[in-house]
C-alpha cells in the first residue's frame, strides 16, 4: 500500500514502529480486533482502520504524531465515538488514535472554579466530581453519560441548557494540543483570554481536523439554588413554536426550552413513562433556574405566558423527582424512537425560530413524499432541530432514501437562513451540504486555514470540508453522487 505522499509503506513495519512507542497491547492491528473501531455513533458508515493505537501519555501522543507525520500516514482521533456525523470514521490507510486511556480528572480548583481534565473524561463525570463543591460543568449533550470532553471540544457540543449557559466554546479556558507535526502547544490560558488569535474558539468545533486535544481546562458554574420545569401541551405545533418566541420576548432566558412533536413525545412516553400527555400535538419543556425567589417569580410569568399562547395544559413539576422525570423523556427521545423503528437517522439543522412552524410543515410534506416517518425533537430555545427519520436498513434502498430525505431537510434549513449542523458536526455525513451552505471561496478559505495547521492534510482527511471536485460533482449529479463503495453498512451486507 502507499501513504499520502505516494511512497510505499508496509503495515507490519508501521506496527513495529508503533510498538517501539507503545506496549504491544496498545497497538491493535488484527482485523477482528479492529472491528469495534470501524464506526462511531453514525453506524451506517463503517471502515476498518489500518491500526488503532491507545496511548496513555502526552509523550506517546507526541511520538505517534511525529512518526505518522514523518511517514505521511493519516491520523483520525477518537473519543467515546458517540458522534453522530461520522467524524471519527477511520481510514483504511490510517491510524485511529483512541484517547480512551486519557480518562483522568487532573485537578479541581474550587476557588478559581475550573477543572483540568484529560480528553477521555466523560462529560457527566466532571459534574459528578465537583457536585460536592456546589459546582457543575454546564454543557449537557443528551449523550453526556457516555460522551467525553475531548469529543465535546471537537464538536462544540451544546445540550438542553445552552441558550442560557452556552456551548462548549463558552465553557472552556485552555487546551493542550498536539499538532500533526507532533508539537505540543497550549491554547487559551488560565485567565479569561490569551495573547494572539482566538485559537481556543477556532479549535472548538474543528472536528479533529486541526490538532489532537490531550488536556482541557473547563469552567465550572455554581449549581443554581433551584430549578423548576414546566410542561406545556399544545394541540398545534405552530402555537408551541410561537410560545417560544413570546417567552423570550418577555425578557425570560430559560435554562432549558425544549419541544417535542407528537410522534417523539409518544415514543418517549412509551419508553420511560415520563408522564407526557400523549394526545398533544407538541409539548414544550421550559426550565427556569436561579435563586428561590427568582424561580418562583419567573415560573409564574412563564405559566401565564404559556396559557396566553394557547397551551391546553401547563404542568409544573411538583418536586425534583418529577422534574427529572420530565427531562428523562426528552433526554431519552433518541433511543425511544429507536424502539419504534428498526433504524433511525438523526438530523441536526438549526433554523431561525420564527421559521420553525414553516420548517416543520415542510418536513411533514417531505416525510410523506419519501414515505418515511419523521419524529421531531427540538432545542427550541436556540433553534436547533433534530428530526429523526425512521427507516429499516434491511429493506433495500431505504437507507439511501433516508439519506436523501435528510439531505433535503438540511438544505431546507440553509434556505430559511439556518445551518446544516448545530452541534453534531459535518464529519463524513454532511460534506454534500457544505457545498450548498458555502461558496467555493469560503470553502477554499477553510482549506487554507486547515493547511496552516496541517500542510500535508494528514489529520482526519476527507472530513468536515469538502474538496472542490466533490462539490462540482454534487452540484452536477445531485443525490446520485455515491459515497465511497463499501462504506455503507447496507452496501456491505
Amino acid at each position, binding site marked *: 500500500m502507499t501513504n499520502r505522499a505516494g511512497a510505499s509503506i508496509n503495515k507490519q513495519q508501521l506496527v513495529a514502529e508503533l510498538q517501539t512507542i507503545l506496549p504491544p497491547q496498545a497497538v491493535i492491528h488484527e482485523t477482528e480486533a479492529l472491528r469495534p473501531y470501524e464506526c462511531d455513533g453514525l453506524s451506517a458508515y463503517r471502515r476498518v482502520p489500518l491500526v488503532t493505537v491507545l496511548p496513555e501519555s502526552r509523550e506517546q501522543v507526541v511520538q505517534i504524531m511525529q512518526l505518522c507525520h514523518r511517514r505521511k500516514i493519516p491520523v483520525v482521533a477518537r473519543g467515546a465515538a458517540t458522534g453522530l456525523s461520522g467524524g471519527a470514521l477511520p481510514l483504511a490507510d490510517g491510524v485511529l488514535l483512541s484517547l480512551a486511556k486519557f480518562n483522568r480528572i487532573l485537578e479541581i480548583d474550587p476557588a478559581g472554579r475550573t477543572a483540568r481534565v484529560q480528553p477521555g473524561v466523560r462529560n457527566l463525570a466532571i459534574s459528578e466530581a465537583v457536585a460536592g463543591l456546589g459546582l457543575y460543568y454546564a454543557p449537557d449533550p443528551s449523550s453526556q453519560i457516555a460522551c467525553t470532553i475531548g469529543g465535546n471540544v471537537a464538536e462544540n457540543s451544546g445540550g438542553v441548557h445552552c441558550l442560557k449557559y452556552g456551548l462548549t466554546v463558552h465553557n472552556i479556558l485552555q487546551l493542550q494540543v498536539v499538532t500533526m507535526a507532533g*508539537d505540543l502547544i497550549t491554547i487559551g490560558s488560565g485567565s479569561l*483570554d490569551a495573547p494572539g488569535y482566538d485559537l481556543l474558539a477556532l479549535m472548538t468545533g474543528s472536528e479533529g481536523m486541526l490538532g489532537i486535544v490531550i488536556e482541557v481546562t473547563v469552567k465550572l458554574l455554581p449549581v443554581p439554588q433551584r430549578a423548576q420545569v414546566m410542561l406545556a401541551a399544545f394541540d398545534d405545533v405552530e402555537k408551541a413554536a410561537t410560545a417560544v418566541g413570546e417567552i423570550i420576548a418577555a425578557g425570560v432566558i430559560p435554562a432549558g426550552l425544549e419541544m417535542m412533536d407528537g410522534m417523539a413525545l409518544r415514543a418517549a412516553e412509551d419508553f420511560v413513562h415520563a408522564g407526557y400527555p400523549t394526545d398533544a400535538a407538541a409539548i414544550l419543556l421550559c426550565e427556569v433556574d436561579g435563586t428561590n425567589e427568582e424561580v418562583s417569580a419567573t415560573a409564574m410569568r412563564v405559566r401565564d405566558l404559556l396559557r396566553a399562547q394557547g397551551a391546553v395544559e401547563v404542568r409544573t413539576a411538583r418536586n425534583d423527582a418529577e422534574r427529572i422525570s420530565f427531562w428523562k423523556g426528552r433526554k431519552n427521545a433518541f433511543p425511544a424512537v429507536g424502539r419504534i423503528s428498526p433504524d433511525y437517522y438523526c438530523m441536526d439543522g438549526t433554523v431561525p425560530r420564527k421559521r420553525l412552524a414553516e420548517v416543520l410543515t415542510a418536513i411533514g410534506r417531505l416525510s410523506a413524499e419519501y414515505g418515511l416517518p419523521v419524529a421531531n425533537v427540538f432545542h427550541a430555545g436556540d433553534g436547533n432541530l433534530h428530526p429523526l427519520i425512521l427507516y429499516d436498513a434491511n429493506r433495500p434502498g431505504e437507507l439511501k432514501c433516508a439519506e436523501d430525505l435528510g439531505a433535503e431537510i438540511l438544505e431546507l434549513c440553509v434556505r430559511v437562513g*439556518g445551518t446544516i449542523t448545530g452541534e453534531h458536526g459535518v464529519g463524513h455525513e454532511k460534506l454534500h451540504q457544505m457545498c450548498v451552505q458555502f461558496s467555493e471561496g469560503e470553502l477554499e478559505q477553510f482549506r487554507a486555514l486547515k493547511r496552516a495547521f496541517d500542510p500535508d492534510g494528514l489529520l482526519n482527511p476527507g472530513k468536515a470540508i469538502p474538496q472542490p471536485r466533490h462539490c462540482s460533482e454534487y452540484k452536477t449529479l445531485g443525490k446520485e453522487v455515491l459515497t465511497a463503495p463499501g462504506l455503507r453498512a447496507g452496501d456491505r451486507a
Partner: protein
Amino acid sequence: MSRELDNSVELQEAVRAAAAENRPLNLTGGNSKAFYGGEIRGTPLAVDSHCGVINYEPKELVLTARAGTRLDEIEAVLLAQRQMLAFEPPHFGNNATLGGSIACGFSGPRRPYAGSARDFVLGVRIINGSGELLRFGGEVMKNVAGYDISRLMCGALGTLGVLLDVSLKVLPVPECEITLVQERSQAEAIKVVNQWASLPLPITAACYDGLQLYLRLSGEPEAVAAGKNLVGGSETPERNRIWSDIREHRHAFFDSERPLWRLSLPLQSAPVELPGKQLIDWGGAQRWLLSDAAAAEIRKTAEAHGGHATLFRGSVNRNDVFHPLTGPLQALHLQLKRAFDPQAIFNRGRLYPDF
C-alpha cells in the same frame, strides 16, 4: 441620526487594488481605539462608511449590523426593546464602531459573568486579503458548519480581514440592578468575590479600586434582594455609574501619564506585587496597572501568576504591546495570517511587528 450604506463592493475593490499593488492598508473605523496595538504601516482605508443595522429580531435575540455602525446607535436600538450587548463593550470615544469593537475584542465589566465579545459573535461577512467577500457563521445560536472563523476575527485587530457585517447574540436588560460597596483589603476582596461567585448569586460585575470592593447584582428584583442580603454592603449613592466609568477609563484611577498595562490573570490570583497603582476588574481576572516598571518585569510577573500582560495605552514603544508568542504557537500564528492575508496587506504591525 442613523446612517445606512452598503459599501462592501467599493471596499472589495479597494482591497483588490491594494493586493494587486502589494500595498499595505491601515483599516480605520471611528478611530476611537487607534491608541491600541502596534504602529501600523499602510495607507488608510476608511471602513466606517459601510454602516447601518441590517437585521434586528428581538425574539430571536440576534442583531446584524454593518461594521461601520456606531456602537451607541446599536445600543440605542437594542435598549428600545429592553435588550443589550451583554459583553458591555467599551467605547473609548463617541465614534466607536461595531467593527472596531469586535476587531479589538474588548469587553466590559460583565465579561467574567456573561461572556466576552467573541462569545456573542454568531457570524461575520469579511473581505480576505485576496479581496474575496466571504460569509461565515450566521444568525443562529448554534452552528458548527466549518471552522469558527467568525470568532477568530474577534480580537484579530483587522489583521485577518476587513469586517463587513457582524451578527451578535443579544440579551434582555435585567429588570433590576444594584451596586453594593464594602471596605476590604485587596487580598480579602479577591477572596470574597470568588467565594461569592461559587454561589448561585446574580453577580454581574466586581471591581476593587484600592479601598473598596464594588459588586453589581442584576436580575429579577427578588434575586437581587436575596443576593444583597447574603453579601451585605451598602448601595452606592451614585449607583451604577462606577461600571461605565471603569469601562470607559473615565474613573479617576486612569487619570495618569504613566503607561497603562492590562494584566489578564486567573480570577483568584493573589495580589500582584509590582510598582505603581492597580485597579482590579472582572472579579480579579483583569488588573489595570499604571506603572513605569520595565515591560520584561511586568510580563514575567503576569506569567508567574498564569496570565499575560498587554501594554494597553500610553506606550513609548509601540512595537512591544502584546505578550510575545514563541515556538510552534508563533509559527502557527504566522501560517494563519498567511492563510487569510497572503501578502500581509492588512494592518501590518498592529498585532505583532512581524505581520
